[in-house]
C-alpha cells in the first residue's frame, strides 16, 4: 500500500534578515509518510519547525532540499499552475481564526471561495448553496453566514475555517495549531469536530500542536520534532508509556498534571543549552540531554527504524528498548 503523502529529506531554510549570510534551517532533513485516512500528530516546541513543515507541504514556503510525493508522484518540482489543480486535495486549517478569514468578506463568502478556483463552472447561487451545506456540516447556525469575522467568536470562526477547508472534499488536511488560540472550554468542540469529520470522510490529517495531550487523544501516530529535526515517530500507544527519545521523555514529563495532591518539583537552574541554535555538528538535543555522550556531540543520529514501526533519531535508543522511565522528583 503506497503512502498518500511521503516526505524524504525535506529541508527548508529561511534567509536571515539583515543581510547576513547565515540562513536559519527551519526544517532539517525531515522524512516521514502518511497513509490515506491516517491522522498523524506533529508535536514540538517553538523553533522546532513544525509549522514550517506544514507550510512546506502546501507549498507556501520553498524547499531547499528533499522531495514531497503525493500518491507516489513528486509534487515539489511541479510548476505553479500544475500544482494549483492539486491544491484541492491538500487543505490547511490555521492557528488564528481571526487572521485566516478576510475581514472584508462575509463568512459565507469566505467559505465558498475555494469553489471559484476548483469548480469554475459553478454559478453564484450554487456556490452559496454548497457553502451553506458546509456551514451546516460544521455545526454553525445559518444566521452566521452573513456576518463578518469580527462579529463572531473564535470557536465559530474556526469552524468556518474548517468548513472552507472541507468544501472541495480534500484528501489531506493539515491543521496548524487549530485550537491553541481558543479558550480551553471551546477547544474540545473543535477537536471533536475534526475527529468526527475525519471519521466520516476518511480524511488523512497532519495535526500540528505543542499540546501533547490534545495530539495524543486525536492521533494514532505521533511525530516529535526538535529544532528542525524529526527525533521520534511512533504509534501513540507505544509513545506515551515508553518514549525512546530523551526529548520525548522531557516533553511528557513537562505536561502538567492537574491533581489536588500534585507536588511541585523543586526549581532547577536554567539549562545552559536553552538558547543555543542547533549545532552544525552532532545531535541537536545534545546540549540539554541527560543521557548525552561524547559521540552525540560529534555525530548526528539518523532516524532509524526500531521495533513495531517506530523510528528514533538517537544513538543510545537501543539501550532502553522498554522506553525511558519518567524523570524522578
Amino acid at each position, binding site marked *: 500500500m503506497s503512502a498518500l503523502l511521503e516526505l524524504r529529506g525535506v529541508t527548508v531554510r529561511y534567509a536571515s534578515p539583515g543581510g547576513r549570510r547565515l540562513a536559519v534551517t527551519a526544517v532539517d532533513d525531515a522524512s516521514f509518510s502518511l497513509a490515506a485516512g491516517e491522522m498523524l500528530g506533529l508535536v514540538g516546541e517553538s523553533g522546532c519547525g513544525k509549522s514550517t513543515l506544514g507550510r512546506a507541504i502546501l507549498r507556501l514556503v520553498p524547499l531547499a532540499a528533499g522531495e514531497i510525493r503525493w500518491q507516489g508522484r513528486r509534487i515539489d518540482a511541479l510548476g505553479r499552475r500544475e500544482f494549483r489543480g492539486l491544491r484541492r486535495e491538500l487543505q490547511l486549517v490555521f492557528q488564528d481564526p481571526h487572521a485566516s478569514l478576510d475581514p472584508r468578506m462575509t463568512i459565507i463568502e469566505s467559505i465558498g471561495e475555494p469553489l471559484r478556483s476548483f469548480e469554475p463552472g459553478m454559478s453564484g447561487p450554487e456556490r452559496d448553496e454548497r457553502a451553506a451545506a458546509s456551514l451546516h456540516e460544521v455545526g454553525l447556525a445559518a444566521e452566521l453566514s452573513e456576518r463578518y469575522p469580527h462579529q463572531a467568536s473564535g470557536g465559530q470562526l474556526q469552524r468556518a475555517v474548517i468548513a472552507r477547508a472541507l468544501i472541495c472534499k480534500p484528501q489531506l488536511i493539515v491543521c496548524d495549531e487549530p485550537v491553541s488560540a481558543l*479558550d480551553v472550554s471551546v477547544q474540545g468542540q473543535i477537536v471533536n469536530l475534526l475527529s468526527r469529520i475525519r471519521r466520516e470522510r476518511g480524511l488523512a490529517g497532519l495535526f500540528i500542536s505543542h499540546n501533547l495531550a490534545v495530539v495524543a487523544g486525536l492521533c494514532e501516530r505521533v511525530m516529535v520534532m526538535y529544532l528542525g529535526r524529526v527525533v521520534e515517530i511512533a504509534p501513540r500507544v507505544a509513545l506515551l508509556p515508553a518514549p525512546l527519545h530523551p526529548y520525548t521523555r522531557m516533553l511528557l514529563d513537562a505536561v*502538567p*498534571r*492537574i491533581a489536588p495532591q500534585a507536588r*511541585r518539583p523543586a526549581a532547577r537552574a*536554567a539549562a545552559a543549552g536553552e538558547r543555543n541554535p542547533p549545532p552544525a555538528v552532532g545531535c541537536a538535543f545534545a546540549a540539554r540531554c541527560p543521557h548525552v555522550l561524547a559521540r552525540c556531540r560529534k555525530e548526528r543520529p539518523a532516524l532509524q527504524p526500531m521495533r513495531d514501526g517506530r523510528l528514533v533519531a538517537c544513538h543510545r535508543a537501543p539501550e532502553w528498548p522498554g522506553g525511558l522511565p519518567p524523570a524522578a522528583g
Partner: protein
Amino acid sequence: MALLEITGLTVDFSGSRAVRAVDHVDLSVERESCVAIVGESGSGKSQLLLACTGLLAANGIASGSVRFDGRELLGAGDPAARIRGRGIGFVFQDASGSLTPHRRIGDQLAEMGTPADAERMLERVRLPEARRHLSEYPHELSGGMRQRVAIAAALMQRPQLLFADEPTTALDVTVQAEIVALLGDLCGELGMAMLLVTHDLGVVSGLADRIAVMYAGRIVESAGTVDFLSGPRHPYSAGLLAAVPSIDDPPGAELRTIAGAPPRPGTILPGCRFEPRCASAQAHCRVEDPPFVEQGGAGIACHYPLQRGGR
C-alpha cells in the same frame, strides 16, 4: 488583616459602547500566600490586575477599593511609583513588558539597586553565569531565561506582593514547569505573597493555595486549591476542569467541552451570566443573578451549586 484587600472593584470602559469588564469583585490575598485568578477570554481577569496597578487603558475607570497593607491603591497617583515604592512587584506575560530591548540587563536591574544586587538576584532566579548576562541584551536570551530576568527585576526591591499576569503562557511547555517551580520556591524563600492571573489550570495546580474563578467579569467560585481540584462546585468551574485535555485520557475519547462561548464584554444579560451554557440551569437562573456567598473559606455564586466531590 489581609495583605491585599480588594472590595467591590469595578472596571468600566467608556467609548462608543460602554463595557463593564470587572463587576464588583471582592478578593483578598493573605501574607505569604498565593492566590490564582482563573478565567478565559472576557472574564476580566487581566483588567482586574491592571486596575490594581494603575495600568488600565486611558478610557478605563476603576472604582471600589484596593487596599495594600492598609493603604488605598486606587486613584493614588503615579502607577510606577505605586508599584515599586510600595512593595509590589509585577511580572508580565511577555518579558518585554518589563525589560527594555535596547539596554543591557545589568543596567536595567541596577536601576533598582546596585550591580552587586543585580548579580545576586540573577543567581537567585537560578540563571547560570549570572555575571555574563549582566552585560547582555534581552534578545540574546531565550524566552525562558528572559522571563527569569523579568522575575529578577520584579524582585529587586524585595516586594511583599507579586502580581503575575499569565507568566508562563508565552513559554514552551518544558520551560513552563521550571518557571512555575521557580516562582513557588521564591515565594517561600522570600516570604512573598502572589496574585496570579492565568487561564492555565496546570499552573494553578502547581502554585496556588487558593483559586478564584472569574466568568464574564464576576468571581463565580473561590476555594482552597486542594478542595477545588477535588470537587469544584460551580458548573462553570467543573466544566473548565473537565475540559482540560489530559494525557492520561483514553485515546480516541471525545474531549469534554462547554457548549457555546463566553459572552463578549459589553453584552449585558439578565440573570446568571453562565446560564446559556449551563447544563444544570433552571428557570430561576435566567431571571436572577446569583449573589456571591461566602461560607467557611469558600465562596460561590450559583443558585444550584454542584455537590462537593460530584460532577
